[in-house]
């Protein structure tokens, strides 16, 4: 499927990646080429085939309900580019 500029703009927006207006055309071509490449999957008859959810033949392991972590605000916050006290900070969001 060939993507147009508007579609690329929408994808970039969903992925939260700023794309300059003049880059949109080039990206549309690149992404369309990749889509054309993967679209050969359309040839395969997959009627009734279970989509793979996990390649590992095992069941979901469960942990016990015990507090084993936390009280590590220093480790959680140490790499934060911005913050105050014990908080992370971001530009103000208006709900």
């Amino acid at each position: 499927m060939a993507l147009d500029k508007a579609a690329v703009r929408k994808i970039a927006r969903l992925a939260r990646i700023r794309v300059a207006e003049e880059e949109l055309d080039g990206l549309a071509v690149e992404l369309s080429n990749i889509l054309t490449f993967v679209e050969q999957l359309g040839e395969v008859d997959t009627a009734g085939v279970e989509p793979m959810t996990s390649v590992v033949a095992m069941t979901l392991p469960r942990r016990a309900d015990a507090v084993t972590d936390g009280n590590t605000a220093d480790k959680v916050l140490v790499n934060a580019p911005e913050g105050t006290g014990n908080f992370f900070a971001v530009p103000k969001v208006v709900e």
Partner: protein
Amino acid sequence: MTTLTDLSMAEARDGLRARKYSAKELAEAHVAAVERIKPLNAFITATPERALAAAAEADRRLARGEERAMEGLPLAIKDLFCTEGVLTTAASHILDGFKPPYESTVTANLWRAGALMLGKANLDEFAMGSSNMTSHYGPVESPWRRKGDNRALVPGGSSGGSAAAVAARAALGATGTDTGGSIRQPAAFCGIVGMKPTYGRCSRWGIVAFASSLDQAGPLTRNVRDAAIMLGAMAGHDPKDSTSVDTPVPDYEMALTGDIRGLRIGIPREYRMDGMNPEIERLWEQGKAWLRDAGAEPVDISLPHTKYALPTYYIVAPAEASSNLARYDGVRYGLRVPGRTLDEMYENTRAAGFGKEVRRRVMIGTYVLSAGYYDAYYNKARQIRTLIARDFDRAFKVCDAILTPTAPSAAFALGEKMDDPIAMYLNDVFTVPASLAGLPAISVPAGLSGDGLPLGLHLIGRAFDEAGVLKIAHVLERAADFRARP
């Protein structure tokens, strides 16, 4: 005496135990080698002090006779593994300055086995690439050159720095991660051994995720025995990874018996592709002959969905990556590029922080998961992944392992194929199917191309039969007797 950096891991281990040299001497030789190969750009961060401190501890343990499986063996660590207090970048601008307050399970296992870290090896950004040219820290050069041509070559990718460091004798071994061929292809390009174990064999905890259903850690070493030693230390059940399998880790070195008589080696007819490089085809035939000479029985097999593996991979991997990389948002760690609103901050940060290939894959992944396209792309790919896994299940009813080439060509020059992502993706055509099926696979250096570059052969085994794969690889290695050096 051979120089210390020429030793294999097994030789170095035995030499340390025999007191032929100290761990300190071994570490110093490698620290110097890391320094010497700086022009290759194989390391993002060198950690010589750390290596030397660990060597001192190794010497103390050796002196007390308390040495562990990998005591004093210096390694390069792909910079996708989080290492406590040491810059971890995934070769991305977006992880600027990130020092994890935690250690990945696999590296922790290695340190527990006595190994020591020389530094963090360069890679393709977020492990997305087959050339190591997508790194924010610049490309890695292979230590190899074509005969009569001094142009720099790629080491392959994404574990390109790891492969280059091991091939250039700056580390006895290195960790890699393999999502679609990222250990095996650079191993083949650099003339070393690279193994991707079964999905679930090595913990993914603490490894920066690319595509979670495919990512597996594995060793890059200079021979099969070293791969067996190192995998034994890396592998094991980890309750912190829900996809880590609780099954015993055998002594892989013990599996190297040299006896493969009666084993059936599958030769998949679909891997013989149109326009296949005759050198690669010849090497493959040679590999078959070597194994037959060793008493194994080559059998023709069919993996009918082979041609769909690459397109399947290029839906599944970017889809997962688009979600895995959503956490790089400028809030809790790494780069932040300011914006007036939260969304602007996100968009600015992610545009500046991700390189071109990462942006491209995140966008493709976002698209194939989006409303209206999910079934046609992502779900279709998951269905074909089931078919590909079934192909292998059927094949393993008639054979014990599968032999293929590792890559469709030898290493290419730095900067080549950069303008055509799909041509680049084709590098992984032989390695991706085993990744999709979660199977263990290894690349063994088996010969040289006409212009003098290494070529690898690739063995795929049954799930959790790393021992079987290593055993056959060991026989192949002996037959190939690959002695070329960069």
